[in-house]
Every structure is written in structure tokens, then in C-alpha cells.
């Protein structure tokens, strides 16, 4: 979240990706939301020292990215952008947890490093799954799916309103921020006084826009709800999709896939 303009570009890019038309794009959004939730719960339910068993879980985002023809490099870069946070939080573990758990020849790996690696892998998995879900579904569809899964309508309205006007306001905020940067020679503004009035002005313009918008909406017959788009159908394909990925996640949760593969391979080696 470096700058307003960068964030806007990201929003637009993900939004455009969601407009794709592959088999996974066409699935009912509820199926994708449910499968992603099962995936995330399975991933985070591992013990803190588990690393190898997490690796096979990459199959879920990888398959969806491939099947949805999403740009893997772009999504990987977005995941990498979040990685510093995971590193910052996890880097304390090697210092506090020094008991050696795994011996690899002469090299002893402490529990701290294992759990650190586990945190980084978990972050990559969960972030990749969330971004893939957004890029495959689009925010409005996710909202609709959540409403049909039980989210209150008023909150869904708020989300849709926010998403609709986010672009306009972020552009306005970005312009104000850039103007201030130019006037302060690239530094981040002139302190609290200018920051307060900058935000205040942004807020005033925002408020006036909301009032104009409300009148325009009333003039067009706004009754308090958005007209709902046609609802998708939770058919056999959706059912199969959820069933397949949930089963796979639960199996991978119960059996350490990487280690089974490893013993299989090392078993054949002399």
C-alpha cells in the first residue's frame, strides 16, 4: 500500500481479471468462497512446526490460477509484497525457540526456524488463495455470494456503495496527495497542520459528493436497495468443485503428502 495511485492500479487490475470468462470464472461465486474458506482453515490448523505438509497445498491456488488464466507473475509479486510482514513477525521465533528438532546430517534445525518457515509458507498460501478468489470472482459477486450465505443486506449495501465510489475518492485523494508532495519537494507533507486540513478538505468534498449522489439516486427512483442481479445457480458443477477441493484439502491435512511422496521416492533409492 505504497501510494494511493499504486493501490488504485491494483484494484483496477484485479477487477479486470475478474471479468475473464473461463470455466472457473463462470462457477457460482458461493462455490469459490466456500472452497477457499475450507482451504484456509485446513492450512492454518496445522501445528506450528509443520512445513513439509503445507507445501502440497500450493496445488489449490496454482490450479485455479492456471485454469483461470490469471497472470501468475503479477499475483506472485503481490504475495511477495505482503511477505515482509510475515518475516517481521516470524523472525523473532528463531531467537526464542532454540530447541533443536530436526537433524540433517551435522546441521541441527531449531524449532524457531521451523516455525518461522511455517509462518512464511502459511502467509504465502493464505494470501495467494485470497487474491486468487478476488481475481476469479470480482468483489461485487463475492458480496452477492456472502449475502446468499447469510450476510446482512445493509452491510452488503455498504460494501457495494464503498466499492462503487472507492475509485472516484481514491483518485481525488491521490491528486491531493500528489499536489502536496510537489509543494513539499517530495517529502511527506508539511506536518500535522497541513495534513489535518488536507484530510478535512477531502472529507468535505466527499460529503458534498454524497449529498449530490443521494439526490441523483432519489431522482432515479432509489428505494433503499440495489436491484439484485440475476442469481447464479448452485448446480452440479459447483457442488463437484466444492466437494473435490474440500476433500483434497482434508486429505492433505490428514496425510502429510510431501512426506509420503518423499518416503516413496527415498524408498526406491538404494
Amino acid at each position, binding site marked *: *500500500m505504497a501510494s494511493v495511485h499504486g493501490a488504485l492500479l*491494483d484494484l483496477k487490475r484485479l477487477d479486470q481479471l475478474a471479468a475473464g470468462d473461463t470455466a472457473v470464472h463462470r462457477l457460482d461465486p458461493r462455490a469459490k468462497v466456500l472452497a477457499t474458506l475450507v482451504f*484456509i482453515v485446513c492450512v492454518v490448523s496445522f501445528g506450528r512446526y509443520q512445513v513439509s505438509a503445507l507445501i502440497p497445498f500450493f496445488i489449490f491456488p496454482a490450479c485455479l490460477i492456471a485454469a483461470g488464466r490469471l497472470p501468475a507473475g503479477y499475483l506472485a509479486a503481490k*504475495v511477495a509484497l505482503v511477505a515482509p510482514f510475515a518475516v517481521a513477525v516470524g523472525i523473532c521465533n528463531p531467537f526464542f*525457540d532454540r530447541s533443536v528438532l530436526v537433524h540433517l546430517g551435522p546441521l541441527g534445525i531449531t524449532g524457531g526456524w521451523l516455525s518461522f518457515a511455517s509462518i512464511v509458507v502459511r502467509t504465502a498460501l493464505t494470501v495467494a488463495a485470497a487474491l486468487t478468489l478476488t481475481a476469479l470472482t470480482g468483489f461485487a459477486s463475492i458480496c452477492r455470494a456472502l449475502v446468499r450465505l447469510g450476510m446482512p443486506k445493509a452491510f452488503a449495501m455498504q460494501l457495494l456503495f464503498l466499492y462503487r465510489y472507492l475509485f472516484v475518492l481514491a483518485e481525488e485523494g491521490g491528486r491531493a496527495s500528489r499536489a502536496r508532495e510537489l509543494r513539499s519537494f517530495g517529502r511527506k507533507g508539511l506536518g*500535522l497542520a497541513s495534513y489535518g486540513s488536507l484530510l*478535512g478538505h477531502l472529507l468535505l468534498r466527499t460529503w458534498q459528493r454524497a449529498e449530490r449522489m443521494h439526490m441523483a439516486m432519489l431522482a432515479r427512483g432509489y428505494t433503499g436497495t440495489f436491484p439484485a442481479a440475476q442469481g447464479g445457480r448452485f448446480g452440479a458443477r459447483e457442488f463437484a468443485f466444492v466437494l473435490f477441493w474440500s476433500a483434497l484439502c482434508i486429505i492433505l491435512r490428514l496425510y502429510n503428502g510431501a512426506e509420503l511422496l518423499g518416503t*516413496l521416492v527415498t524408498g526406491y533409492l538404494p
Partner: protein
Amino acid sequence: MHMADALLSPTVGAAMWAVSAGGVALGSARLRRERDDRLAPLMGVLGGFLFAAQMINFSIPGTGSSGHLTGGILLAILLGPSAAFLTVASVLMIQAFFFADGGLLALGCNIFNLGMIPALLVYPLCYRRLVGPAPGRRREAAVTMFSALIAMQLGALCVVLETAVSGISALPLDKFLLLMQPIHLAIGLVEGAVTLAVVSFLRKARPELLTRGNRPSAVSGRVVLASVLVGAVLVAGGLSRFASEKPDGLEWSVAKVAGQASLSEHRAGVGGFLAALQKKTARFPEYQAVPAAVPGSASASASSAPQAGAVAGKGSAVAGIVGTVVSVLLVAGSAFLLRRSNRGAVAPEA
């Protein structure tokens, strides 16, 4: 202060989801009852404002760092508690879905820490009580500052507690607290100063905007207390399942602070259920020959019998690494094949 999925256990994540979902349901019901249809576009647009404002930094003089607005208290002053809560929650949701700023499972925690605490707890119970019906400017300024500070401290405290109960991070509770609270004291001071600056600007420019939050239809203490109670019961339920695994709660917490993770803490909640299921269903001969294959048992064997743990660990480590490499290759291969077979499909316009 956004929490990530990677540090959370499913029990904590689900409990906080339940609390936040309850808050969202309450807030939505309350808004529907108010029937102020001007509020809907206003909330949407203010959410956009908050989103933009959170990304405009300002430099804090003398420190070289920069800060920005978080906005819970400011929105509560402008909109009233339930509308402010829903607005903050919606912004958090956009951030989770588009920027991976806080994960999907952690969304419940984040909505609670950054939305529920300032808007539904601190604003009605601290700000409204202290500021009184017709406050002077000094008093209002002091109360605004104080509320922002309290909200930030409580939020940071909850982050620490949620992380500690999850037990993924090895950071001891006391050290984590000593790290988080002072940092968020500074952040809270900045937050209070910014909120104050914006509020005093609005008071000069359009004072009538500041009357909306002061309407008597604020969330009643009863509702807030009820939701906190529900949260406490849920969290306590999660906690007691942790504690009951050990004979002594104190022993558990001591072991925790000392950074020596015991096996039992991974055995609680969904993780524990799955691990137990795993033990029952593990019938592969290779699997049983390698004790470290059961997640968490690596630590148990190492702590109870270091010798055996080391010997067993060696075999499983090799298998684990080979398996990791093989599964990476498999994942990459299947993704590659899927992409090739999918080449004929219509590409999304990127």
C-alpha cells in the same frame, strides 16, 4: 495492526468471526431501524474517504517516521457508532480481498480490533460519557485524544492476546506486550492528533456535520455489553479447551511464556480435532515408521526423549525435504499442464 492468517489458529479465527458477525448483524439491524436513507451513500463515500486517507501519510516531525489516520473514532464522531462500525468493517474487507492486508480468516479479528473497539466500545462507553452534552473546546479535544489512545491500546492488546492464544508465534506474551503497547501508544497519540485536527477543521468549515453523531439514538450500553459478553463466552470457550488439556492453567501459561511449546496446545480446537482424527486414520506403514510425520509430535519426541527424537528426526527430515521438492514439481507441472490445455479458452482482458 492488521493481523494475518498465518499467525492465527482456527479456533481463535472462528471465535472472532462469530463476534464480528454478531456486531455486523446488530449494526445492520440498527441502521435498518433508523431508516435514514441519506446514510447509505454517505457511509459508502466515507468508506472511500477512509480508504484514501489511510494511504496518505504525513511525516512526524523529529522522528523521521510517518503516520496516518486509522479513523475509527473520527467516523464514530461523524456518523454515530453503528454506521461507523459498518464503514470501518467494509474498508477492512476491501483491504483483505484486494491487498491481502489481513487475511480472510483474520478478518474477524481485524474487524473487532479496528472497528468494534473504537466504534462500539470506546466511543459510546468512553467518548460519549466523558464529553458530556455541551462540551467546551478544551474538554472535547482532551476527550478525543484520550479516546483515540484508549482505542489504540485496546486494539493492540487484543492483537497480542489473539496471537498468544493461537500459539503459532513463539514470541513470549510479556515481551510481545512490551513491544506492542509502547509502539501503539505513539501511534495512538498520532491518531488522536489527526482526529483532533480533522474535527477542528470541520468545526470551522461546516459545524453542522458534527451534530450527526450526537443524536441520542447511539448504540445503547445494553447491546454493547451483550455483544462483549457473547465474545467473552466464545473466547473463554476456546481458552478453556486449551486449558483443559493441561492439568494446570498456570503451568500452561508458564510453559507458553518460556517459549517451550507443549504438544497439547496444538491439540485444541479444530486443529486438535483434525490431529486426533489423523492419529486414528494413520494406517500407512511408512507413515507410522516416521514419528515426526504427525504434526506437532516432532516437538514432543524432541522434548521428552531427545535421543530418539534426533534419530527419528533424521529419517523424516530427508523424506520431508525430498517430498517437498517432489510436490513442488508436481504442483508446477499440473499448473503448467492445466494452463496449456486451457490455451484455447478466452483470455481475460488484462
